[in-house]
């Protein structure tokens, strides 16, 4: 399978463009004063405006525009002079006005790019536009399957209606499903760093539509594309695209023609299915919303927003490498996941040992959370406590072996390391007098090892150290033990 894909890859080129929707986490909705909510009682966060009652009018949420500008700047876009809103007209019961207020020919940002780090190379993905629009309500289909086609009836919750939404559209610069996934990871990380969205995948705060086509490498002409709608996980995005690429190539190889369609990815079958054909495409009858006047975006406003943009992941990675002395791999690992980098930096705030913090996070910590399928923040270990643990190791209060035990206890209980060590009496024994006594005992009880050491087998010393450690339940400072034994046996 792997090889087959490689062969195909040699012959065909994959062309992917993504449209990503991001729900902003502003306090209020895009065009009214309703608070944003998730999981609230249906239709409780609504008003005449977001319910589209007769006579109600929209007013632009300035904060949402500000966040859009922030995103556009972070994605290296040019910012438009005016935020102009259009109406996108189509009938659907989740849309209170039967038009969506969106942007058309004058989006907030245009002509940007994202550098996507693929490990061995960097893929520059151009961003054609960043625009603002309002989200729709949520339809719930009542029936045995919850699917619209089999529903007895549908009900609608307008809490989400009017939530500010950002759409980020790329050029077809993405060359593989893996790059698409990496693009979305990179984008999500930037958005989290900007603190403009919770980017929750489960809640659908970030979701992508993917346009994909394949062409012979030798050909200049793009193939016919299909669009996969509403991919709200990195995995679905990658799998859906892989399925589509294979499907396109199969069709082309067997002499067929790919039909332009909108498709839906079903994770149960791991396949895509037709939603609608091109002929069913809507005519949205875009026109400028006469209820809204264009919002001027002045240079000094842009500059003010620029000042609020925090250090972005790419800059972070460079700093970790240049100033914290992390390796290329470690820097990339720590910087390119917002949760990890924010956790990492919080640890450093409490105790400044970047290398150790990095090793813990990438090593034991990752192993534990991966096993349980949770994230760093979902674990019981706070950054402060992890810093405390590292501090104790650095000050030789505990040794590495004990540290692992303490870590496990921290992970299971959420207690702080000082308490654990006190409770369990795990404090390292650095007291030479105390240690000498134990060592003398061990030397007496292990004449074989002693003679082996004396006959030049230096490895025998580890056995003796091990015995001391066992006797002290791992609490002895192994370095001191080592030194004392050598001294005693020489």
């Amino acid at each position, binding site marked *: 399978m792997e090889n087959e894909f490689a062969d195909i890859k040699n012959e065909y080129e994959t062309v992917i463009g993504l449209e990503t929707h991001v729900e902003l986490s502003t306090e209020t909705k895009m065009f009214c004063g309703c608070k944003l909510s998730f999981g609230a009682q249906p239709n409780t966060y609504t008003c005449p405006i977001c319910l589209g*009652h007769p006579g109600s009018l929209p007013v632009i949420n300035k904060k949402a525009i500000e966040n859009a500008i922030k995103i556009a700047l972070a994605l290296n876009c040019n910012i438009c002079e005016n935020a102009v809103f259009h109406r996108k007209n189509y009938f659907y019961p989740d849309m209170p006005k039967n038009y969506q207020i969106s942007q058309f020919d004058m989006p907030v940002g245009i002509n940007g790019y994202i550098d996507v780090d693929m490990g061995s190379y960097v893929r520059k993905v151009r961003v054609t536009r960043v625009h603002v629009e309002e989200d729709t309500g949520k339809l719930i289909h009542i029936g045995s399957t919850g699917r619209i086609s089999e529903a007895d009836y549908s009900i609608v919750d307008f809490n989400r209606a009017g939530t500010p939404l950002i759409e980020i559209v790329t050029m077809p610069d993405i060359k593989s499903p893996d790059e698409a996934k990496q693009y979305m990871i990179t984008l999500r990380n930037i958005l989290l760093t900007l603190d403009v969205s919770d980017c929750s995948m489960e809640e659908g705060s970030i979701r992508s539509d993917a346009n994909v086509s394949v062409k012979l490498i030798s050909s200049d002409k793009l193939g016919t594309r299909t669009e996969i709608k509403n991919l709200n996980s990195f995995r679905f995005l990658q799998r859906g695209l892989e399925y589509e690429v294979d499907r396109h190539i199969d069709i082309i190889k067997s002499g067929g023609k790919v039909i332009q369609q909108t498709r839906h990815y079903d994770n149960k079958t791991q396949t895509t299915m037709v939603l609608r054909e091109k002929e069913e495409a809507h005519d949205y*009858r875009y026109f400028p919303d006469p209820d809204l006047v264009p919002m001027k975006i002045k240079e000094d406003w842009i500059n003010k927003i620029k000042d609020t943009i925090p250090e972005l992941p790419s800059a972070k990675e460079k700093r970790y490498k240049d100033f914290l002395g992390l390796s290329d791999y470690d820097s990339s690992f720590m910087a390119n996941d917002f949760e990890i980098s924010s956790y990492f930096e919080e640890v450093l705030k409490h105790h400044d040992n970047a290398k150790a913090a990095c090793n813990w996070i990438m090593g034991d910590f990752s192993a534990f959370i991966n096993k349980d399928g949770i994230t760093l923040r979902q674990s019981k270990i706070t950054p402060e406590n992890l810093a405390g643990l590292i501090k104790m190791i650095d000050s030789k209060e505990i040794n590495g072996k004990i540290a692992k035990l303490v870590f496990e206890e921290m992970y299971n209980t959420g207690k702080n390391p000082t308490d654990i060590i006190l409770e369990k009496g795990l404090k390292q024994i650095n007291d030479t007098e105390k240690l000498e006594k134990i060592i003398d005992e061990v030397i007496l009880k292990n004449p074989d090892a002693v003679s082996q050491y004396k006959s030049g087998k230096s490895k025998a010393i580890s056995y003796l150290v091990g015995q001391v450690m066992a006797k002290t339940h791992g609490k002895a400072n192994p370095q001191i033990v080592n030194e004392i034994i050598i001294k005693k046996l020489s």
Partner: protein
Amino acid sequence: MSLINLGAYELNELIKKKEISVFEIAKAYVQRIDEVENDINAFISFDNDLVFSRAREIDKYIKDGNDILDFTGIPIAIKDNVCTKGIKTTCASKMLSNYVAVYDATVINKLNRHRFLMIGKANMDEFAMGSSNENSAFGVVRNPWNLDCVPGGSSGGPAASVAAFETACSLGSDTGGSIRQPASLCGIVGLKPTYGRVSRYGLVAFASSLDQIGPLTRNVKDSAALLEAIAGYDEYDSTSINTDVPNYKSFLNTDIKGMRIGIPKELMIKEIDCEVKSSVNNALRMLEKSGAIVEEVSLPNLEYALSVFYVIAPSEASSNLSRFDGVRYGYRNTKSRTIREMYKKTRAEGFGPEVKRRIMIGTYCLSSGYYDAYYDKAKRVRTLIINDFKKAFLEYDVLISPTSPTTAFKIGDRADDPLTMYLSDVCTIPVNLAGIPAISLPCGVSKNNLPIGIQVIGDILREDNVLKIASAIESEVKWKMNLQI
């Protein structure tokens, strides 16, 4: 003299002097409504008890020593496309025949601060689309001067109710002449303010870039006062203008000597009735006598105003009216099996023919492949019209024209001929396209006893000039009211 014959400012004086109670005013008007409403049909919602209980509340409010403002206790009818919380707001459509508004429009909030007496919700052309008030799901409104004639539209109810003394004043809305044309046909004063002067929040939208709420009154002074009461910036309407509201009443009865008046020749077209023309000319001569300078002026692009309007207004309407789908409120066809079928049947049954015609025109104009040729082109020509006015106002303080080419026409006469009907607004439409203020007031009566209206147009936010000239016309031009009822 009966209370109903008094203007709002006269009633205000009497209330202030504690010579009459609001309850007495309410009683006089309710009695009048009982007498004539069967003939006029000016109201969609009217509730005696509600009017009386409100009147009592206001009397108590006054007795408690609260300030009496211009419209404290003054009966005002509200066109039924302005949202009134807890009260049906139907837009004269089957689609909203049982719709109870969930909030008050900004203009209602402003008038509530005065403690005004809402007398009822006034009849209109469905969704404000029409020039005769024949397109109402609640029946035609009849002209108090001649019950066989239309009152004009779309604010037929607001105009007829004021003319028939069923209310002291009313609020209407004007998208292409819907305040001024019925005011003209009913022999009263109708003012369309500068676009953005009055908040549209709570006005059920017909064409958002053209709609504006304004007063219909029996005299210019009431018009100025009512405009003052409802005007002003509103953070709920992004298109409202953020400048102070002047004391409009102060512009009345001022010297107009040296004021420059332009007569756009494109509005003195052959379709204008001879009688209308001569009445308007007569008024112009009076103004000249008072020291104004009157000259003919050309605004060449006004010729295209009607065509431009009938692209832009239906386009915006097609989108504005798409929310009426039977999903959340209003009329719904309950026998449909699918959502598409429900949409189609709800809208087919809920909207009247004129509304459907405009939705179809607008949908067509905005469709891909036609947008540039229609909507975009119309917007460009609209800019030319705006520039024509700008140029004219460099030379003139106001422009004057007839309000309507004809006096009130017979009910049914133009009902089957939309194009002739559309011509009713040929003089008023350019004003909406330019977003400028204009007033219509009576300037004479025709031989067959129907009122004739004159239109005074001002530059953006120059309601002052409009009111100055209107006030001069009102005091100089004499005519006699002779109602059939």
